[in-house]
Every structure is written in structure tokens, then in C-alpha cells.
């Protein structure tokens, strides 16, 4: 296919490659771009992976929760004029309430159903939540400002880099660590892990398994909302943003392995690097990166880097 060759050739001769080869400063900046993008996505996708790990449900509506977080941030900071911090809190609280309501009324019916039904239920939620957001916030263009002291760039010695994105680079690992500690070293975490193995046994031991499930769903969804709120200064609340982000979340959790927290972390970083360096090397290939990675992973190692092989079957 000569057009494919042409496509690659224009890519290979890109000025981006020249910049990469000649300018170490440029390379560092792309690394920072990749890491900050990865950490942003980790915060968003971690909840999706957690929910799948415990509840065995892939929540399509995770993107919609992300969107709600962004819109709530807008309402808190711009409409109500409160501090950025309260916006994040508001997003978390809002999503806790929303996801609790959804879990209590709808989700509990599908835990024992086939995967197809679960997925479609979450898809139905996507449709309804999208319209719900439209009713609440309308269709105008919104913008959320950076928090005041993080709107500029930080001097890293070698180069300047936007402060807010550096914050994300820090927040990502912090959240990862917090989640990991929570899962490994608290009672809730241990029970949750046990629930992934054998919920009947847990119930027999007198543990309120539905409550565990609800709590996991709430935590995972709140993370999506917080991710949306944190991303909102540079990813403005817009109708349809849920459909865009869910695709990237999927790619990341599949790369990393559904249900693995560490997998999501690594997967997000990988995605960040492939996307950014790929965009430099092949400038007009952005549409294809996500699906190409998805394809490669699914073809050769469907359970991802850190997932469990028993998920794949014949």
C-alpha cells in the first residue's frame, strides 16, 4: 500500500525526530510530558481497574464519572467562586453520592449476570448520564482556571516546565501509594482482596459483602471524579468528553492488566510515552496509537502486563 509507505515516510522525516536527536533539553521535556500525561491517566484509570479487580465489572460509565468531576469542579470554582481545593473535594463528594445511588439502585442487579449484560448496563448509564450532565450544565463552553500558585512554570534547572503538570507527576505516585497501602495494610483492603477470591466464603464468615462491593464502587468512581476535577484546568468540561477519555482508560487498563493497580500505573506510563514520543516521530498518527497498542496487547498478551492469565480462555 503506497499510501502507507507515504504515511510512514512523512513521519520519519519529521522535524520532531531532528529535535529529539539534537536537543537533550527537548528529550527531557517530552519525558516530562509523557510522565505527567501518564500520571494524569493513572489517577483517572485506577478506579476502573480497581472496580474490575473486585467487582469483575468493566464500568463504561467511568468516563461519565470523570466528566461529572470536571463539571462539578467548574461549578464549585467558577460559579460558586470557591478555592480549587474545594473543587476537588466537591468532585469527590459529588461522585460518592452519584455512584452510591447508582450502585444501590442498578448495579447490584448485575453482579451475577453475564459480562455482556454488565457492560451494556454501564453503557446505558453512559447514555443517561450524558443527558443528565447536559440538563445540569447545558452545552456551553466552560473553562476552569489553574489554582493561582500553580499557573506558571517551575524552574527545574535544566528547563522550565508547567508547575501544575509537575504537581500531577507527584500526585500520581502519591495516590498509587495511598491505594496500595490501603489495600495491603488495612482491614478493608484485606477483605476487599479476599472478596476477589471467594465472596461466598466471606459472606459465610459474616462479612457484609454487598457493603464491600458498594464501597469499592464508590472509591473507584470518586477517583474518576477527582481525576476529572484535577484535569479540568487543561481538559475543559465539554459534552462528549466522557467518550474520549474512556477509550484511553481502556487501553491503559488492558495494557497493564485488568484489576492490577501496579499494572494500571505502568500501563499509564507506557501509554504516555508511546503517545508523546510517537506523536513526535509520526506526527499524523495520533488516531491510530491507542488502537494499535490495544490490538498488539490483545493479540499477544490479552491479560496485559500484570494481569492474571486465567482471564483468557479458549
Amino acid at each position, binding site marked *: 500500500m503506497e499510501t502507507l509507505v507515504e504515511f510512514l515516510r512523512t513521519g520519519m522525516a519529521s522535524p520532531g525526530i531532528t529535535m529529539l536527536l539534537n536537543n537533550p533539553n527537548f528529550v527531557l521535556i517530552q519525558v516530562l510530558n509523557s510522565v505527567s500525561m501518564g500520571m494524569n491517566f493513572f489517577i483517572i484509570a485506577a478506579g476502573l481497574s480497581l472496580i474490575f479487580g473486585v467487582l469483575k465489572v468493566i464500568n463504561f460509565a467511568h468516563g461519565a464519572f470523570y466528566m461529572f468531576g470536571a463539571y462539578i469542579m467548574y461549578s464549585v470554582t467558577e460559579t460558586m467562586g470557591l478555592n480549587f481545593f474545594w473543587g476537588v473535594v466537591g468532585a469527590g463528594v459529588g461522585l460518592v453520592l452519584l455512584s452510591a445511588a447508582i450502585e444501590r439502585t442498578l448495579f447490584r442487579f448485575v453482579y451475577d449476570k453475564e459480562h455482556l449484560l454488565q457492560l451494556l448496563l454501564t453503557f446505558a448509564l453512559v447514555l443517561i448520564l450524558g443527558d443528565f450532565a447536559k440538563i445540569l450544565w447545558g452545552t456551553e463552553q466552560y473553562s476552569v*482556571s489553574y489554582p493561582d500558585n500553580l499557573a506558571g512554570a517551575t524552574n527545574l534547572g535544566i528547563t522550565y516546565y508547567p508547575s501544575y503538570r509537575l504537581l500531577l507527576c507527584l500526585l500520581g505516585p502519591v495516590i498509587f501509594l495511598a491505594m496500595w497501602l490501603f489495600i495491603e495494610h488495612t482491614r478493608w483492603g484485606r477483605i476487599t482482596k479476599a472478596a476477589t477470591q471467594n465472596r461466598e466464603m466471606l459472606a459465610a464468615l459474616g462479612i457484609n459483602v454487598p457493603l464491600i462491593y458498594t464501597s469499592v464502587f464508590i472509591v473507584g468512581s470518586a477517583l474518576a471524579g477527582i481525576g476529572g476535577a484535577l484535569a479540568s484546568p487543561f481538559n475543559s468540561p465539554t459534552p462528549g468528553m466522557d467518550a474520549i477519555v474512556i477509550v484511553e482508560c481502556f487501553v491503559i487498563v488492558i495494557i497493564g492488566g485488568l484489576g492490577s493497580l501496579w499494572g494500571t500505573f505502568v500501563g499509564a506510563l507506557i501509554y504516555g510515552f508511546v503517545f508523546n514520543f510517537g506523536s513526535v516521530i509520526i506526527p499524523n498518527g495520533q488516531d491510530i496509537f491507542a488502537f494499535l497498542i490495544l490490538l498488539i496487547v490483545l493479540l499477544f498478551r490479552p491479560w496485559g502486563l500484570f494481569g492474571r492469565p486465567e482471564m483468557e480462555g479458549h
Partner: protein
Amino acid sequence: MLHIAKQTAPIIAILTTLGTVQAAEVKIGMLYPITGGGAIYGSPAMTGHRMAVDELNSQGGILGMDVLSVERDTKLNPATAAAAAKEMITKDGVNVIIGGLSSAVGLAISEIAKQEKIVYIATIPKTIQLTTTKKHEYVFRTASHTDFEGDAIAQIAKQLDAQRICDIQLDYAYGHDLADGIDKGLKRHLPTAKKILSLRPKLRATDYNVFITQILGAGCDVVTSGLWGPHFVDFAKQATPFGLFKQIKYITGGEIGSHEIAGSLGKDYPDNVWANSYELWYHHPNQEHETFQNLLAERLGTEETAMWPILALIGVRMYAAAAEKAGSLDAAQISGALKGLTIETPVGPRTIDSETHQADTGQFWGPMVEKEGVPYRVMDPITYIPAHIIE
């Protein structure tokens, strides 16, 4: 009574579309995205459309007949738009279709118009194809197009003495067409400028950092762009911490000079941006604009009105004028009447070229600057760049 009406209604509908019977009313079909991602534009456009229809009816309608607006949602989907267009023609018996937003939708509606032999006036789609390769007897455009837009960008680049240009366009038809338009414009106006970098973020991209940093690394003095709506908002928010707008001048199409964008970005709107808009609520090129803007402000409930309504309004007015000139609703006669037709609008006169079926729709261009006393930027000075390409 009802069953008689039911039997005669289809006959009347058929005869009406043949134009041989004076029906009770003129039916104008409207197609804009009213739901989904396009609603940001389609909804205000619909308001402008309805304003124009009400205006017509208050002045006695078209050819003495009442005007009825038949409205459908394209959902930014060309197949949906095509189906809706067909339905409007076959079921509702519209006399004309006005609207469209994205280029794909415009082309889809145009194809249906060609098949069914009904006039289609494209009020927003900018793809150059509508009036070149895909032009036919029944399609007309009152929007601008990418060659005009690109030419204007090139003119401003010349004003700013651009030497090394980075071009960033969304990787889809509009972006490609605009890039072509800019290239052609640069050849005409500023052949000394060099385009050293061409960047193509994907449509609906959310992270532009990799492009922003390439622009910085490439050392251009001017960036030309077509990033519109939420793309520009996100790009600006991401580029500002890098100090991009302190190092380059940013000339862009995509109407981000309109108040929708300026208002939402507020104090976060960057410096050194030269933008365009079809219309600005605070700029009165003629007396009519003030009246129009006041009426629109009443409808939308705010003084700071959106830019899209005027485009819809112009389309409707153009049709009404053509019908009056032709003295008939017959599509072939309307088509003939539209060619060379001039109407007055709140943003100046518009004439449709007989050859290309394209109206000479220019836009307002200028730098976006801060203004005392208001939290948003405004265009100042405002220059109207006409849709006139000097070869």
C-alpha cells in the same frame, strides 16, 4: 372532516413540492446539531434560524404565505443528517433545506438535495468541496470557506512579518483544507515565509503538550492554526504555562475570536492571538446590527450574544429574497434566483456568485486584547477581511 383532510393532504403536499399549487405555507427545513457535542453551535444557530423565520412572518411571510420551520437534529452525524434531510423532503414536504454544521454533514445534505432536487443553503460548513468538486445546481453556501479563511490568515501573517511559520491543524478534513488554504494564501501574499513545522493533533485531542513543546523547539515566530472551540481552549490552557504566547504570534481560524470562547476563557485567554469571528456582539458595522443584536439578546437572555445565530439568519434571509425574486417556490427557479443575488445583513451585504454558488462572506479579524472593566477579551482593532481572493 378529518378524513377528507387526510386524503387531500398528500395530494396537496405532492402538488406543493411541484410548485403548481399555492399552498398555505412555505416550509423551511432546518438541520443543525441540537444534541451531543455539536449542540454548543447548533443550539444558538437554531435560535438565529427561528428569529429569521419570525422576522419573515411578521413582515407578511414569503410571497404572501406564512413560513413554517421544520427542524431536525443532525447529531453531527452525516448519515443521520442525510436521513433527516430525506425525511424532511418526503414526509414534511419542505421547500428548502438550510443549515448543516460540519463539512461531512454539509456534503451529505448536499447530495440529498442533488438527488431530490431541492435547494440546500449551507450556512456553516466550510469545506471547499461544496462549491468546487461537489457543486451542483441546488447547493449554495453563505458560510465562508477554507480558502478565504486561509487567505486571510496569510494576509495577517504578512502584516506581522512572519518568517518561520509553524502550522498546527486538526487531523481531519477541515484542518487539511485550511492548511491548503493557508499555503495558497502564503504563496500569494508572503512567499518569503517558510513553513518549518506542520503539526496534526487528532480531532478531539485532549493533550497538546507534545505539539506545544515542538513548536517551542522549532523556533518559529508565527503559528498558524485552525484549532476551534474546546480544542483552542485546551490548547491555550496547556500552552500558557510554557510561555508559548510570549514567544510566538498565534494567527488562527476557527472563529475563536467570538464571544463564546472569549467569555469562557475569561482572564485565561492568552496574549498575541489574532482570531476571527463572523460577528461580534459589541461591534456594529451598520445600524441593522444594533437592532439585530438587541433582539437576539432578548431571546438568549444575555447581552453578550453568541456568534452562530447570524449565520443561520443569513441563510433564511437569502432564501426568502430568492423566492421573492423568482416569484415562485420551484427549486429550479429559486436556484436561478440565488445566483448573483445580493441581500443586506447585519454584518454587511452578501452576494452569491453565479458561477461558484458561494457568497462573498468575509470575517472580522484582529488581535484579542484585554479590556478595561470587563472580564473577557475583545477584538481590537477589528478589521473586516472580505472574501475576495486576488490571484
